[in-house]
């Protein structure tokens, strides 16, 4: 019997080639989009799964409560790993990771490495980074031991076997030995590093070993490996007492109360609320909302494609009606016909599946690029995945074929065989409803895209409160010749000015335990973000003072006893005007003095985040960065001149620089990728919707051939016929617009909440989406309508 179904399905497809094409193409494109999203979602949810013990690994995070705020910190204190392992039998192992960038030298080869980690020797017992050479157990025990990734190994040693060979790290007097090689850490790992340096090397590198009893040293990521069957919740409940025992007195003194939590390893990437100060190159974070959003988009696109299928199949029911009648007459029961039509729909989806797989394979490199990472190297690399997708296709076939099969199998043989069958009204409401649904989704996606792009544009162009143009940033990595280099810059004609600092807007900063005099005259303990800057910094970045004065060499005490804060800090301390804050006392990291000025708030972090309180002080020992203000003209030659100076004065380090505005905007890479993906899927959604519209409109045009002929004979113009045929469908698009607008408004308003600084949703965005979708829909429909309208009426009448 199935053979019979198959035969008739294939013959039907071949007989109605245009319909089959539209039907299958729509499904295939929808399925391909869905597959790509499926890969994306599986990739995003696969983070850290390669660790065999993943379900026993927890990251320690903490909430630090000060009298002023609660800090959600992912960075933990040095002794935790050691004492937790000692005190709690359920802790099998613990490991700390600290991030630092090293200048790595091997003969003439030198690189300023950014992805390097100092790690405890227990690392490879906790994590399953793919180790290929060396002794996994002892590789990280000795001081000055390094495990290299294969990429790093290639960089320094080419095809040589690097095991036992040496490289030199900055600061260290002696060589470090390569004790192990690992494959590059998988992309779906929250931790990324090209080089793992043994924690015990700290003494050689920094001149002091990691203080294992310093309970205020927040510098480490700490991961615990619990024993099998250990209860993480119960362990977490015991941690407050643990903190009291070792750190209680200090917490009371500092008024910084730290509560520890255990975050399951698999939740860290997508769900952690404890944001990092670790560089994103080492610790990657995702966004569970994006996973949800794309899952929803994937389902929507699939729905749109299924609706096409449903619409096109039911629209053509008249052609199948006779067959239904004959089969019923020949003894077919309704469920047998239902089965037949569902089988047919599965056959069609399987054809679409094959095309979709081909499309996905072709689109994958492009999709990886859009997503900003390699979500998959090939759909065929994972046979389980392809099996899942295959199964999904069959489900799609059943889902899409369900209604049409019920609809078709319900026909009464009497009426269809007698030709008393009119499909024009049967199921028409439903088809119209489904078209409206498709366009609701499409218009909502278009509106969403417009809003995402407006927000991106807003972020790129908003006045941040400082001048980010023509600022070149060079990280000296505290090279001993940095002063000579900076002084030499003034001789370059394109360099307008240059200034030292520890931080620049958009980049890293420290946060410091501070005791500040507040509006009530009390000493308020708090943790404040801190920039170390030199005298000209405020001037060069064109930051605006609202009260007091800037740092000045005229005041001898400015270099050690002066602080400038921003308005947010003044507000946090309770001052109602900036002026009140000037002259108040501070104590921070061993320095005491007075606040000399208050700066107007500027966005030193990305616009997703509120401007937080900020303090600025002069501390030459912390100056690692040079900001160079350059003239806009002759930029390449200016940069060349800077490079020449660098290479002469700092020959042992490679010349690296970036533009502040580029670096600042890189904070929006994730949003950019999101926006691009969003745009592409919106385009696909509307494309599939239009395919459906094309199919439906051509079908209804065929049905109305006679009417069109009669009208033309009676003198109707081409344009009036086009209007006649288009109006019905355009009405549907308008209804869809009315429904989509509040939905899109609601969803996008919610999306925008993630941005502390955001654009306003305004009417033109919806109007633009409406006009765009109307134009696209009209172009689709009019193609058929015009063809019908200009046809010779005699011909159309003769077809009856």
């Amino acid at each position: 019997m199935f053979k019979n179904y198959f035969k008739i399905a294939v013959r039907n497809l071949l007989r109605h080639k245009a319909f089959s094409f539209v039907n299958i193409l729509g499904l295939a494109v929808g399925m391909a989009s869905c597959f790509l999203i499926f890969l994306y979602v599986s990739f995003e949810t696969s983070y850290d799964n390669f660790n065999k013990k993943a379900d026993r690994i927890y990251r320690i995070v903490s909430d630090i409560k000060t009298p002023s705020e609660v800090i959600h910190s992912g960075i933990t204190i040095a002794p935790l790993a050691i004492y937790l392992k000692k005190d709690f039998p359920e802790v099998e192992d613990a490991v700390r990771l600290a991030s630092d960038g090293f200048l790595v030298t091997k003969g003439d080869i030198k690189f300023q490495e950014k992805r390097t980690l100092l790690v405890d020797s227990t690392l490879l017992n906790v994590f399953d980074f793919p180790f290929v050479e060396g002794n996994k157990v002892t590789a990280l025990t000795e001081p000055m031991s390094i495990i290299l990734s294969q990429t790093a190994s290639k960089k320094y040693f080419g095809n040589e076997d690097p095991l036992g060979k040496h490289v030199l790290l900055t600061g260290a007097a002696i060589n470090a030995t390569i004790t192990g090689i690992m494959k590059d850490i998988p992309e779906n790992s929250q931790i990324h590093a090209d080089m793992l340096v043994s924690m015990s090397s700290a003494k050689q590198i920094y001149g002091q070993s990691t203080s294992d009893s310093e309970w205020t040293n927040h510098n480490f990521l700490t991961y615990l490996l619990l024993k099998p069957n250990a209860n993480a919740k119960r362990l977490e409940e015991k941690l407050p007492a643990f903190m009291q025992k070792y750190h209680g007195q200090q917490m009371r003194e500092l008024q910084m109360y730290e509560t520890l939590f255990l975050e399951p390893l698999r939740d860290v990437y997508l769900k952690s609320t404890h944001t990092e100060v670790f560089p994103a190159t080492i610790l990657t974070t995702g966004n569970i909302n994006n996973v949800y959003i794309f899952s929803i988009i994937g389902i929507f696109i699939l729905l749109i494609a299924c609706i096409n299928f449903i619409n096109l199949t039911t629209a053509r029911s008249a052609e199948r009606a006779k067959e239904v009648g004959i089969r019923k007459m020949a003894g077919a029961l309704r469920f047998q016909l239902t089965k037949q039509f569902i089988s047919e729909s599965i056959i069609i989806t399987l054809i679409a599946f094959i095309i979709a797989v081909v499309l996905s394979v072709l689109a994958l490199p492009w999709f990886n690029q859009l997503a900003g990472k390699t979500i998959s190297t090939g759909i065929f690399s994972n046979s389980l995945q392809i099996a899942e997708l295959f199964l999904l296709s069959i489900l799609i076939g059943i889902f899409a074929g369900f209604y049409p099969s019920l609809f078709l199998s319900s026909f009464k043989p009497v009426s269809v065989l007698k030709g008393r069958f009119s499909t024009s009204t049967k199921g028409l409401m439903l088809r119209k409803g489904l078209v409206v649904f498709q366009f609701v989704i499409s218009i909502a996606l278009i509106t969403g895209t417009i809003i995402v792009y407006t927000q991106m544009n807003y972020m790129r162009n908003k006045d941040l409160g400082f001048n980010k143009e023509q600022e070149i940033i060079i990280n000296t990595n505290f090279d001993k010749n940095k002063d000579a280099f900076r002084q030499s810059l003034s001789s370059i004609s394109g360099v307008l000015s240059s200034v030292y600092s520890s931080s620049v807007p958009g980049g890293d900063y420290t946060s410091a335990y501070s005791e500040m005099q507040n509006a009530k005259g009390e000493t308020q303990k708090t943790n404040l973000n801190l920039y170390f800057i030199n005298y000209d910094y405020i001037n060069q970045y064109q930051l605006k003072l609202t009260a007091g004065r800037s740092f000045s060499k005229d005041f001898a005490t400015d270099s050690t006893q002066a602080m400038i804060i921003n308005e947010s800090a003044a507000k946090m301390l309770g001052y109602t005007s900036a002026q009140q804050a000037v002259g108040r006392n501070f104590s921070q990291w061993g320095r005491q003095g007075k606040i000399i000025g208050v700066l107007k708030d500027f966005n030193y972090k990305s616009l997703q985040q509120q401007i937080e309180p900020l303090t600025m002080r002069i501390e030459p020992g912390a100056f690692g960065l040079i900001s160079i203000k350059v003239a806009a003209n002759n930029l390449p030659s200016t940069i060349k001149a800077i490079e020449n100076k660098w290479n002469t004065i700092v020959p042992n380090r490679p010349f690296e620089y970036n533009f502040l505005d580029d670096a600042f905007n890189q904070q929006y890479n994730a949003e950019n990728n999101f926006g691009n993906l969003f745009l592409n899927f919106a385009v696909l959604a509307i494309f599939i919707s239009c395919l459906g519209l094309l199919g439906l409109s051509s079908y209804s045009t065929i049905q109305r051939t006679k009417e069109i002929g009669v009208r033309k004979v009676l003198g109707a113009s081409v344009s009036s016929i086009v209007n006649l045929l288009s109006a019905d469908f355009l009405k549907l698009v308008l209804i869809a617009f009315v429904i989509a607008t509040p939905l899109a408004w609601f969803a996008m308003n919610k999306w925008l909440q993630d941005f502390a600084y955001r654009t306003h949703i305004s009417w033109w965005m919806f109007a633009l989406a409406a006009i765009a979708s109307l134009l696209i829909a009209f172009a689709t429909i009019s193609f058929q309508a015009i063809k019908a309208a200009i046809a010779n009426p005699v011909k159309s009448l003769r077809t009856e």
Partner: protein
Amino acid sequence: MINISQLEKVYRTEEVETVALNKLTMDIKTGEFVAVMGPSGCGKSTLLNILGMLDDPDDGSFIFNGIEVAHFNERKRADLRKNNIGFVFQSFNLIDELTVFENVELPLIYTGVKTADRKKRVEEVLDKVQIMHRRNHYPQQLSGGQQQRVAVARAVVNHPKLILADEPTGNLDSSNGNEVMQLLTELNEQGTTIVMVTHSEHDARYSHRIIRMLDGQTVTENILI
């Protein structure tokens, strides 16, 4: 074989109510060849549909082979239909996407006959209607007469006890029409009961008995033999 009494069927649309069968009563014996005649709209086709269990009556009794079927549900009707009744229509009603062989095979598929058996039976019946040489052709490639012969072949492949023919020659020229009538006569002679709706007095003369209908009722009966 068929006993109908007080059968009623009314078609309703929003505005009009059309009485198709008005307390109709008739009996048809096994082995009979009956022609039903009457003007358009007299209820002949409705009668045929009810006899074929494609439609159910609103009221009255319909006994088929001793079983009351007037209130059978769709499934039971389909069961009874596929084992007992064959149809021949004016417009042939062949499935365009299936070949001659596959069209004729269809009823056997639904009655669950095995493949090898199906082949034998289809070939047998195609032979009988002399269309064997066209077995792999599609309906559109055949003449009207040939298509109707295929339809007849399909109607009898299951060895039904009753054949219902609705204007079987209506779309055919006279020589093709006569061939089809010959075929039906032969089937009748081999024992199949035939009820045929027709406008053609010529065709009606092939039958044993002519029932004339008007406004949903029988008006006269002529017995020809």
